[in-house]
């Protein structure tokens, strides 16, 4: 984040505030909200291993501020600026042009509709300090080995989305979304997506090729009884990521969310199939098979149960994991069948209304050892998160 970017973002915000702040206008249709989370991932670090350097070690902060403006009954704008581990990020900057509940056009920069977790990716909206492994963006141990999760969340991008929802009486809500966005990026010859390049404002938020990524989502929410909701959905996106549009990625997923009273049971599965450049054999760990050797598949899944325990305390149990199948960069500690499983027992305690303390011991089980010979690792995620 250069000074020029800070000035740019500040100028946009000031201009927006100046144009839209109540003066002659009403206070009726503007909302400001935000959140802050300070996290400390306490992970024992062996002096002979690099495991401790492969996660966000020490204090990390996530801050966000969002302005929502309703220009009319059918037009609204949202701008959300985040500050995370890699500086400022424009998480949202879009207009919604709503014809009716069933037809809305979203134009600008936003996270396209995919999966269930991204709807609550803000730290104030999920009760564990970190994200499920399929959506991990850096708090997992050995994140460099894995190049993060399947679809690190959030994933803001420039583009257009058509979405909507329809209610069938009081029993069902059907929603859909279809979109075209710039898509994920990587430089020529890279074997995996480059999530920094995909998000970084230092590249001016422009695409690296001339083909958009397309995708969509369909989901249904059923009211099974008083206080009982079941939501299930399917999502997918497909595009190219290299400057010459030679290599593709497809990300697909399914999700289920059962809510009984205030108890939440969630399960989600994602997979990414990605082709890569095999012309440089020396860059790869395994000999390239003549058939089907030019892609890998990365699966990720989680199941979690969130249970209010009373007195502002929630208990959360989560099991999640990643499975990566296929060739990989030479020098990677991962094999062509690499797995990691993680078991989390967490709690979230209200300190004051809107502020929570989050604690979650986590056990990681890798199917390969680190330099210290460990395939089991533990850490304690501690965080304080607040919303305003």
């Amino acid at each position, binding site marked *: 984040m250069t000074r020029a970017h800070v000035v740019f973002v500040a100028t946009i915000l000031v201009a927006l505030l100046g144009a839209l702040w109540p003066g002659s206008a009403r*206070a*009726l*249709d503007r*909302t400001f*909200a935000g959140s802050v989370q300070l996290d*400390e991932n*306490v992970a*024992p670090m062996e002096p002979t291993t690099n495991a401790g350097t492969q996660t966000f070690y020490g204090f990390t902060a996530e801050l966000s501020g969002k302005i929502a403006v*309703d220009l009319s009954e059918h037009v*609204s704008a949202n701008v959300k600026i985040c500050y995370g581990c890699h500086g400022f990020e424009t998480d949202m900057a879009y207009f919604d042009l709503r014809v009716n*509940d069933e037809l*809305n056009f979203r134009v600008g920069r936003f996270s396209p*509709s995919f999966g*269930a977790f991204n*709807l*609550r990716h803000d730290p*104030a*909206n999920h009760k564990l300090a970190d994200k499920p492994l399929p959506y991990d963006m850096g708090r997992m141990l050995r994140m460099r080995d894995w190049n993060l999760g399947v679809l690190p969340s959030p994933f803001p991008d420039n583009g257009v989305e058509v*979405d909507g*929802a329809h*209610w069938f*009486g*009081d029993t069902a*809500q059907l*929603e859909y*979304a279809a979109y075209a966005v710039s898509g994920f990026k990587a430089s020529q010859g890279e074997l995996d997506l480059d999530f920094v390049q995909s998000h970084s404002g230092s590249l001016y938020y422009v695409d690296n090729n001339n083909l958009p990524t397309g995708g969509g989502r369909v*989901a249904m*929410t059923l*009211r099974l009884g008083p*206080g009982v*909701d079941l*939501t299930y*959905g399917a999502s997918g996106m497909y595009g190219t990521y290299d400057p010459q549009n030679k290599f593709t990625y497809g990300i697909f997923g399914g999700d289920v*969310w059962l*809510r009984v*009273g*205030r108890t939440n049971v969630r399960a989600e599965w994602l997979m990414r199939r990605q082709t890569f450049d095999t012309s440089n054999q020396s860059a790869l760990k395994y000999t390239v098979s003549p058939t089907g050797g030019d892609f890998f598949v990365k699966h990720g899944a989680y199941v979690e149960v969130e249970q209010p325990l009373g*007195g*502002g*305390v929630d208990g959360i149990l989560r099991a999640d994991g990643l499975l990566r199948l296929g060739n990989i960069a030479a020098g990677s500690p991962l094999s062509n069948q690499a797995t990691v499983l993680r078991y989390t027992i967490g709690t979230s*305690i*209200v*300190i*004051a*209304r*809107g*502020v*929570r*303390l989050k*604690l979650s011991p986590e056990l990681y089980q890798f199917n390969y050892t680190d330099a210290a010979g460990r395939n089991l690792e533990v850490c*304690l995620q*501690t965080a*304080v998160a*607040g*919303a*305003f």
Partner: protein
Amino acid sequence: MRSWVVALLACTALGACASTMELSEGMDLSAVPPEQQADYAVFAQRCSKCHSLARPLNSGITDDAYWRMYVEKMKRQPGSGITENDRPPILRFLHWYAGSKAHTDTKTDGGT
């Protein structure tokens, strides 16, 4: 090892503070009049699905028209599960809350 000890001590202290304060993100039911409790139940169930109840309770919003627009907006959120029949009780509760002492106390406390 030292960082573990520091973290655990800090967490224990924060947890102890929280337990003595007996806070929750929703409302203490004893502070909600009996005639409002059914409406509050709908509000608490529907409006805690995607975010903390602290968001609406700490918002400081007292304008009924604003809440009407906002609840309509929330209804359209993916997977909200908020139906037409949920809107009246939610709005009735928010109207009561906006004028209640509970709301004044939240603002006095500074909210979050």
